[in-house]
């Protein structure tokens, strides 16, 4: 599978090359000047969510009043997420919950797929997470203009503020608004990369004497479980932060 000649990094800027994974091109495919080659990165991003989408589809195909089998599982997962997001968004923002639910599932599954040997660590690439967070950012901007119209810019200024403070606070709030997608994407990437670097370092202890080898195996298996927790936590944090941004722009300074 990995026997491809050409390889490179996505967004290779200096240091990123050193501790980010390299993708391998499996099916080279060019359209004119544009590169549409299928890499293992693209295959993982395509197929891991497809499996889950299939499970969710089968589970919710024939909804009955008394849930049986797979429908139980689907309902438990959806309702757990729904209750968390509903607390922030309220009745008016409940229409955005399916988007957030698919976001949390997508990120969680790719995070878990990171830990399976042989699969590509997709969420440790800035290209994927930055596109996800830019999607959220665009959604927030569109919702902001949809809800407030031209008064969108006034949401950056808290009400009942002295006139002198307003421009400074506007610049500050605008800056923190624009930095959001970058910090969202970086948080996920760095968490994943830090976990993998840690596992790599612990794994390299295995070259010593046998007692250290056993210790290294024990530590790395405990760390793998810890990484599973981190995977769930980061997916939760990503979706919850997106939810808070949407709720923030919808309700503004009303409450």
């Amino acid at each position, binding site marked *: 599978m990995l026997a491809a000649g050409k390889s490179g990094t996505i967004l290779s800027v*200096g240091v990123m090359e*050193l501790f980010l994974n390299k993708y391998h091109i499996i099916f080279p495919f060019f359209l004119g000047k544009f590169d549409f080659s299928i890499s293992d990165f693209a295959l993982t991003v395509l197929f891991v969510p497809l499996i889950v989408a299939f499970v969710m589809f089968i589970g919710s195909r024939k909804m009955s009043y008394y849930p049986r089998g797979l429908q139980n599982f689907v309902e438990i997962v959806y309702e757990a997420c729904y209750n968390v997001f509903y607390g922030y968004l309220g009745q008016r923002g409940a229409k955005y919950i399916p988007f957030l639910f698919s976001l949390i599932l997508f990120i969680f599954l790719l995070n878990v797929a990171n830990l399976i040997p042989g699969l590509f660590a997709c969420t440790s690439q800035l290209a994927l997470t930055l596109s996800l967070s830019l999607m959220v950012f665009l959604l927030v901007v569109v919702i902001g203009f949809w809800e407030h119209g031209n008064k969108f810019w006034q949401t950056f200024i808290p009400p009942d503020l002295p006139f002198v403070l307003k421009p400074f606070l506007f610049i500050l709030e605008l800056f923190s608004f624009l930095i959001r997608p970058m910090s969202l994407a*970086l*948080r996920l990437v*760095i968490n994943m990369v*830090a976990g993998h670097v840690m596992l790599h370092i612990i794994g390299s202890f295995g070259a010593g004497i046998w007692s250290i080898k056993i210790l290294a195996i024990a530590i790395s298996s405990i760390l793998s479980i810890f990484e599973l927790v981190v995977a769930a*936590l980061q997916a939760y944090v990503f979706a*919850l*932060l997106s939810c808070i941004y949407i709720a923030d722009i919808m309700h503004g300074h009303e409450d």
Partner: protein
Amino acid sequence: MEIQVAKIFGAAIAIVPLFGVAIAIGQIYSTLISSVARNPSVKKDVFPMAIMGFAFTEAIALFAMLIAFLILFN
């Protein structure tokens, strides 16, 4: 001083924010424990907030790690 040595020192200094981050995470969880111990029914509301605070604080530590890597390997 050779440039390689200077890089290592720079990376070591870039990790100093971990001091503050450790204090902050300890503070978050100690406050969570004491608030839940005083009123156990509030756990459902407080726990997501604690996780959010933890994530924000942890992000600072990881940014420090990123800066250290940038200094070390660039």
